[in-house]
């Protein structure tokens, strides 16, 4: 008899992708999807295209994990692996912050309660976030799994995630026989990921905080799904997949770098002004721009991924920069003509006479010329003439 995997949050992009992936596993017999609404990604339909071989059955159970109904579902299908992906920052469809918090915290409590009562459950995977570390100027530059931030997040999704992790720790104490894996994901990006940061980067003009250039880390959704898959299965030889792991792509990008790679102009604003703009953006529903996201965009956050590479045994295929490049390739073209500016510099460089051969002629000084090409260009020229 194969595994029975219960997945919460299948109505979201990541959950749906994970279900598709885990159904292809040979030793998985049944996948139970739980959410308040059926997945809009068509999980119920025929087996995923191109899979070739056998795929596990899929059952959707409409249930609100805030209610005890989930215990019945676990008992009914004798679930042995629970993958809890319904810890999210944004509401599904309508609903405010209150609903999100309830789903995150009360939902996790109910689910863990149900798991504790179910003797069949052997493995629990919980999606968390690196925002449990907060974003503060007085914290270390790189967080490892053991580090505690100097101040716990005061609210928002980060606080939910902290509380969820607290309940998960309590659960693993009460059920030491269950392998528990907490995955702290950095910001998930991808062509189709539906995260708040993706929405932010889709704005035509990126508001930033004046005087701060935060360090960001991303993980590609393909890598996120792969890490979840590995965590939900038996550990491979020489690796452990229970414990807490930071999941992020190698390397770091600065926000200014992201903006330039997206060819989006940035507007640096003072902190009070940006709170106002964030409120406006939130109200118009162009993007979710929460206070904790502003903190992220102010101070940034970088986590250490050595533990993931060495203990968990997985190195994300895409680095932070590559994950972001994949997202940028799918994003709409930006407003800055960076391509053309870059081409202009290339042409200018190509037209420079080769060193050591110069025609003897007199004329204007060179500083006069490029100064017209824009402030950045003139600045660099002067610098270069040191």
């Amino acid at each position: 008899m194969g595994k029975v995997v219960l997945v919460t949050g299948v109505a979201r992009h990541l959950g749906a992708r994970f279900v598709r992936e885990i159904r292809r596993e040979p030793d998985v017999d049944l996948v139970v999807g739980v959410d308040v609404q059926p997945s809009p990604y068509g999980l119920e339909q025929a087996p995923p295209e191109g899979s070739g071989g056998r795929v596990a059955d899929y059952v959707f159970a409409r249930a609100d994990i805030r209610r005890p109904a989930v215990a019945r579902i676990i008992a009914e299908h004798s679930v042995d692996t629970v993958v809890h992906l319904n810890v999210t920052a944004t509401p599904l469809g309508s609903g405010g912050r209150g609903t999100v918090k309830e789903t995150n915290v009360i939902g996790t409590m109910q689910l863990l309660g149900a798991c504790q009562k179910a003797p069949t459950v052997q493995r629990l995977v919980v999606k968390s976030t690196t925002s449990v570390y907060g974003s503060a100027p007085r914290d270390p530059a790189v967080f490892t799994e053991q580090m505690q931030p100097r101040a716990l997040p005061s609210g928002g999704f980060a606080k939910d995630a902290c509380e969820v992790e607290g309940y998960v720790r309590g659960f693993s104490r009460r059920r030491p026989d269950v392998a528990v894996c907490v995955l702290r994901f950095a910001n998930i990006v991808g062509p189709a990921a539906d995260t708040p940061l993706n929405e932010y980067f889709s704005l035509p003009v990126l508001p930033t905080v004046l005087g701060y250039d935060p360090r960001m880390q991303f993980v590609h959704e393909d890598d996120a799904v792969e890490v979840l898959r590995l965590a939900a299965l038996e550990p491979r030889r020489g690796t452990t997949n229970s414990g807490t792991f930071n999941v992020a792509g190698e390397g770091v990008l600065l926000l200014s770098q992201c903006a330039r790679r997206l060819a989006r102009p940035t507007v640096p604003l003072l902190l009070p002004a940006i709170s106002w703009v964030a409120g406006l953006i939130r109200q118009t529903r162009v993007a979710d721009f929460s206070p904790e996201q502003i903190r992220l965009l102010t101070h940034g956050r970088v986590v250490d991924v050595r533990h993931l590479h060495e203990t968990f045994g997985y190195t994300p295929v895409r680095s932070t920069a590559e994950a972001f490049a994949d997202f940028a390739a799918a994003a709409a073209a930006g407003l800055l003509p960076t391509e053309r500016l870059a081409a202009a510099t290339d042409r200018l460089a190509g037209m420079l006479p080769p060193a050591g051969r110069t025609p003897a002629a007199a004329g204007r000084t060179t500083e006069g010329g490029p100064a017209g090409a824009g402030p950045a260009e003139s600045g660099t020229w002067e610098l270069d003439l040191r």
Partner: protein
Amino acid sequence: MSAAREYAMGDAKVIPIESARTGGAAQPPSRDREAAAQPDADRSTADRSTADRSVPGREGADRTRPGTRPPAQGRDARRARGPVRPPAAGPEDDRRAAHRRLPPLSALPQGPLPGPAAAGAAGAAAVGEAVGGAADRAGAAAERIADAVGHALAGPLGGAAERLLGRGWERRAANGLAFLRRRITGDYEVDEFGFDRELTEEVFLSLLRPLAEKYFRVEVRGIENIPAEGGVLIVANHSGVVPLDALMTHVAVHDHHPARRHLRMLAADLVFVLPGVNELARKAGHTLACNEDAQRLLERGEVVGVWPEGFKGIGKPFSERYKLQRFGRGGFVASALRAQVPIVPCSIVGAEETYPMIGNARTLARLLGLPYVPLTPTFPWLGPLGAVPLPTKWTIQFGEPIATDVHPPEAADDPMLVFDLTDEVRETIQHTLYRLLVQRRSVFF
């Protein structure tokens, strides 16, 4: 690589405008990846990349030079490019011009305010288009100017440029352009601490170097005490109100060390709270003075600089000059012990007299949330002029390394040993300071 190379190869007549527009920002250009990947301190890499680039340059120059007037070609190209502009650009020239002058976001609220989501998105898109038009024009203008300048330099102005800027200006200009290109497209790398090596080398150090070489005439001794590779902790005395001594030490280590190593400084948390300052500090490779960061840097094999006196040292009154303050709690020694790296004591003479602090405006400091507000003979009485440091003559002496690998890493938890080592480092620096002060002829020469 290939697309970028095409731009460089093509002469003024075959301008891939279309591809530039349709390509959009989709694929970040990968030109000069090698240069970006290892922007090594030694100039040889830079030279190599320029040599690469000068090949297409030579072709272009050969084609344009003989007799013909190159700028005319540029003008032709411009005319040909005219109709390629977006058709929507025509009627609303004024509005677009306005958008260009205004910061784009100030226009953003106009859209979203009246209606719900759809209106907001539409408004944003409209603004986007308008700004996009302006951006297109800016791009075209930049190309035109690049053409004109390039032809001028290839033709009549080359001689003038050489006379004015000295030999090899083409190479430097090409370097500058490559740097500019990477900045425009965001095609550079930072490490996990946010250290932007290229920016530090090209901009920060270039700005600080005249200060170190011409103004303070820093004399560097004992640079051979810093190993060519591997982690090392440099511990120095702190003085002079403004952390100029730390910046000068960075220049000294980078410019004098044969391996051109970068000094990664551990800075006070105040640095990372202040807007603007924190951004520059991170890009210059500094990080917060805490055990985790220090150890991480040392384990990565970096040269880490620490000024354990902190604000007690840098903000001490002039009467106490060159008297070392307490060395914190010895956390730096524990980090070095754990990482098993040597400690190099460093004594800096001359920084104390740059701003002789004769008083401290305590009330104002408390109001501003700063550790001190200095009063010097010139500041704040002479206004901004008073903020100019005195041109003292500096000496930076790196001492003999103190080995820590004779102790096991667990020794970091032995407070007696940590205190002993802390005292040893402190005494070494203090004695070296006294010796250097005796040798010094004058504060200013």
